[in-house]
């Protein structure tokens, strides 16, 4: 998500929004760094955050498909942000109360950030949905395009610290309220692409990684 938001640098519809999107990117990146470092330590194979971020191929990434989708227009980026944060807020809230102290600490910080992200996503969804005829049409199209990718977020995984299936209720409630206020229609459930958690990604991810990893990989073993 941070990588995709980074693509917006100096290209947002308003200068204030350049700042806001960079803020969100920084939060997402910050949480990712803490989680990757922890994962690397838990693995015990000596991989740090950079080894995990820059030296894996797309088949080894476990991210949900939603975050690797291209940015599209501003409406699509907002739809991704709304859905992601409406999932991350209850997720981090639950993790913050979990037994793993380090994970709980990371989540406690990320939860507050997610609340801000959700607020930002909500505010823009409403503005665009209830703005002009054009923005309404675009925002509805964005919601329709991104919606199928939300199903994957809640695939049950009883082995996870928090079973994602348990977060669906909170997500649905949040989204229903935001879409209603935005005069937008919640898409029907149907096609529900999946595979990200098993390393089966869209064709977009390998392009994203080619760009993200190019400098790091061109200088094996270098410090930055």
């Amino acid at each position, binding site marked *: 998500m*941070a*990588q995709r938001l*980074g*693509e917006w*640098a*100096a*290209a*947002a*519809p*308003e*200068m*204030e*929004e*350049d*700042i806001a999107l*960079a*803020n969100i*990117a*920084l939060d997402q*990146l*910050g949480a*990712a*760094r803490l989680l*990757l470092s922890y994962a690397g330590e838990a693995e015990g194979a000596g991989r740090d*955050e*950079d080894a995990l*971020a*820059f030296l894996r191929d797309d088949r080894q990434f476990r991210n949900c498909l939603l975050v690797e989708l291209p940015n599209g*227009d*501003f*409406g699509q980026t907002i739809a991704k942000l709304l859905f992601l944060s409406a999932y991350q807020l209850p997720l981090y809230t639950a993790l913050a109360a979990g037994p793993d102290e380090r994970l709980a600490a990371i989540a406690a910080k990320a939860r507050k950030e997610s609340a801000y992200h959700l607020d930002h996503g909500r505010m823009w969804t*409403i*503005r*665009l949905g*209830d*703005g*002009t005829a*054009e*923005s309404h049409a*675009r925002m509805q199209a964005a919601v329709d395009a991104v919606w199928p990718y939300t199903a994957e977020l809640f695939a049950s995984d009883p082995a996870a610290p928090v079973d994602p299936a348990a977060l669906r209720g909170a997500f649905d409630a949040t989204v229903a309220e935001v879409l209603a206020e935005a005069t937008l229609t919640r898409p029907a459930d149907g096609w529900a692409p999946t595979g990200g958690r098993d390393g089966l990604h869209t064709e977009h991810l390998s392009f994203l990684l080619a*760009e*993200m990893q*190019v*400098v*790091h990989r*061109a*200088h094996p*073993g*270098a*410090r*930055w």
Partner: protein
Amino acid sequence: AEPQDHFESVIAADQKIEPRDWMPEDYRRSLVRQIAQHAHSEIIGMQPEGNWITRAPSLKRKAILLAKVQDEAGHGLYLYAAAETLGVDREELVELLLNGRQKYSSIFNYPTLTWADVGAIGWLVDGAAIVNQVPLCRCSYGPYARAMIRVCKEESFHQRQGYEILHTLAHGTPGQRAMAQDAVDRWWYPSLAMFGPPDADSTHSAKSMAWKIKRFSNDDLRQRFVDMCVQQAEALGLRIPDPDLRWNDERQAYDYTQPDYDELMRVIKGDGPCNRQRMEHRRRAHADGAWVREAAAAYAAKRAERAQREEPVAA
């Protein structure tokens, strides 16, 4: 007392002119122009560095770079706000940028070709900006001076980060070292040119000095920058690409080769390597965002209307 006298006495006493004070029209215009160009530079300056956000070679560097580019947007906003205290509005100034009637710093018309350029921009370009801007913190117009204090504080942070990037590269693999030297080779003279034409050819300087908007001449500032860089380059272990650079005991300063001012004029005129690209990018971002800004305005209008409609019911 006449307002003109008041103005002159404030200037003479090294105090601040504030938005509600009377000021000569020339002073106002001159400030608007300078502050707006400064704001435009921050906004356009996001592009060359933003170019490397997606490719930063470590997550830490990516975070630092994102924050830096974000700061630049923030600087742009303070500066537009400072200009607005002089009775223009941001939209108007942005329009002058987009239609090419107002300029931004020419340095941003050079391309960032490698990751090391992010370091070189931080060290040299931000370094030059700081040398230029520190005196502006004492400039006679209050809102500008205060904006500059905040900007300079962040810029010096950015400069240190750039220095760190170069230091790491210069002490890294041979490939990294070569990348760092290459970046310094390309950014050195354009950075020197940031101080503007030599004093003899500078048009706006005299008046600006009298009004205490500007406090040192282009050449003085350039010299200060060179002297500062030489020592830092030694610490970095990188070479400044000027064979004639040497200490002059008499002047107690470094002699150095002047940048190519003809090139500077060409770049200012619009013929630098990236002028068209930067402007197209900015225009495209502005055009692509039009529907979003319109939506926000329409939504705000609807809300205001609804609030008004609800009032009588409540009464």
